């Protein structure tokens, strides 16, 4: 089988998603056998961008003209474009303040008005600019998810999606429910599972790093949290950590 030509890169992000891939020590040799990494600046020299790719795996949100330029050229060159990680899918941490402050103010807070500010706009998911064929969520995604993705791409398909909230796996692991038993601010009911409820399993609430689950009952979750004495502002701040602009009235 001809190895797939793959591009792996990041836009506005922390490289965690790409690193997750490099952290698959055991699987890496097999993975490298399936892929020809034509463009992977994090780990390779001699990258070629003007090629045709079987797949482009892109981490990060779009927040600068350079991001956009890279994204467009990858979209044009790749048969399958994968939004890899929460930032690429929902905007992620970089976008958390999108609905409450304007980009220019943020830039000024950091750079002062001493010099010319870098060009940057509100970080947005890839899908705001290009069509996306597949998605892997998580901040960072689970190793097994990226392995599943690569294996599926090599087989000419995509991995089937899981569609349940964090609570489902959390309960199945016999964790203590932090929302019910400790009245903590857990976002498990409205957040996409697949992480095997990592955080609640260590006794830490789900911070929502995988973005909304399908048909999240956001309004009810908000009510649950308000009932437990959290302020509306705090809840909104927490929910928008990985995805700005939830619809707080949504029930289905």
């Amino acid at each position, binding site marked *: 089988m001809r190895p797939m030509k793959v591009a792996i890169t990041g836009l506005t992000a922390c490289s965690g998603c790409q690193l997750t891939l490099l952290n698959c020590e055991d699987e890496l*040799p097999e993975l490298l056998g399936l892929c020809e990494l034509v463009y992977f600046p994090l*780990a390779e020299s001699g990258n070629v961008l003007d090629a045709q790719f079987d797949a482009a795996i892109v981490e*990060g949100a779009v927040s600068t003209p350079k991001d956009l330029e890279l994204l467009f050229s990858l979209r044009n060159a790749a048969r399958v474009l994968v939004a890899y990680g929460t930032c690429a899918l929902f905007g992620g941490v970089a976008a958390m303040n999108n609905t409450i402050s304007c980009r220019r103010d943020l830039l000024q807070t950091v750079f002062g008005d001493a010099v010319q500010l870098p060009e940057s706009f509100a*970080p947005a998911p890839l899908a705001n600019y290009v069509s996306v064929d597949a998605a892997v969520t998580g901040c960072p995604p689970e190793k097994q998810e990226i392995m599943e993705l690569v294996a599926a791409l090599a087989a000419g398909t995509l991995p089937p999606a899981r569609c349940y909230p964090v609570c489902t796996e959390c309960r199945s692991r016999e964790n203590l429910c932090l929302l019910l038993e400790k009245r903590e601010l857990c976002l498990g009911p409205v957040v996409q599972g697949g992480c095997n409820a990592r955080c609640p399993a260590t006794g830490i609430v789900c911070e929502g790093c995988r973005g909304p689950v399908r048909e999240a009952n956001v309004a009810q979750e908000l009510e649950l949290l308000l009932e437990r004495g959290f302020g509306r502002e705090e809840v909104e701040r927490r929910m928008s950590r990985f995805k700005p602009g939830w619809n707080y009235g949504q029930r289905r």
Partner: protein
Amino acid sequence: MGSVVEIAPLTRLEGHGSVRIYREGCRVERVELNFIDSPRLFEALLIGKSFAEVPEIICRICALCSTVHKVTALLAVEDALGIEVSEVTALTRELMLQAGMIQDHALHLYCLVLPDLLGVRGVAELASVAPELLKAGLAVKKAGNTVLETAGGRLIHPVNICLGGLGRSLNKKELVRLKDELQQALPAAQEAHRLFSTPFPFPELPEPAFLALQPSDRPLGARLCRMADGPTFPLRDYRQHVEERVVGYSNAKLSTVQGKEATVGALARLNLDPDLEPLAAQLFATHKRELVGKDVRSNNLAQAIEMCHAIERALRLIDRLIELGPQRASAPAISPRAATGSAACEAPRGTLIHSYSFDAQGLCTMADVITPTALNQGALARDLLALACAMEGEETTRMTTALERLIRCYDPCISCSVHLLTL
């Protein structure tokens, strides 16, 4: 006739960067180092967030360094709010720092530097040219990862460490398993120095001004910054000593410490009274002449020695944790107050400083993060120019290859450095 050579993107390092060499004929006029990662603006994003959220958000500044960022942020917030933690918590945190050191050095040495030594493009080719070496390196990296994942609940952006305590403490079974893993990785880490003491095919560079935290035997309790041949200053006064400057072409800032371009990282630490574990101390003694007072080309060797040290130290921490037994997690009640706190840790790449202020409700009013790469950037720019000048007249590709290798000696982490801070 002026010409410009550009190396873009810089590869096999974390983040997006480029280098431009401006030449007049064959004379090198100027070298420009650009860190072009998209601005992440963390210091601005954190304003208005509650103290408990700060460490959880700031670790996303950089995946590679997420553990040390999270630990440093926790220490800074705890410093501000006057929170004490238990010994188990402190040990677990330090264990994670050491594990971060192991996995980070292993990643950098085996995946990013080794290809230079063997003249290949990257990991993929490495897998076919030197599969055994790569495997050995990955095994060391994996041992670090396993510790991070088990102790932190997740490898990148750890979840288990939190303000004032831990989600859960490790049980004996887990600790014993981690000990096993680390012991298995030790021999390879002990051998690594052989690979990375290979001399560089390019000329000597200016002597660095090393900077590291003190005391060196208490990674979580550093209170002082020490500069070689300079005065030692308390961490909380860092703003009076570290100066930062915006340069138009780069999205990161250049910093100077007491007017000098400081060098931080493994080599700096080994130059400033390191407190090494036995095996690492032996290695250090063997290589002393290649390390002490040497330029940054020796940094990779220093990393290899530190990798061994970190494993030994982690083993010791685990022994102590086993002795103490698990601790029932009970997070202290934390009451917000208006305060400022600072903390610093030695990250794999060097000194990392966090500082935060909170209002009476516990909402963040100021956030400041100084990363090792930001600290190193001045020295890096200086060395690039020096090297380019020293190689004047050489073939362009030879020069660019050498410059890229020099950059990898510093092991810069651009993601971290491009966040910038309030002036």
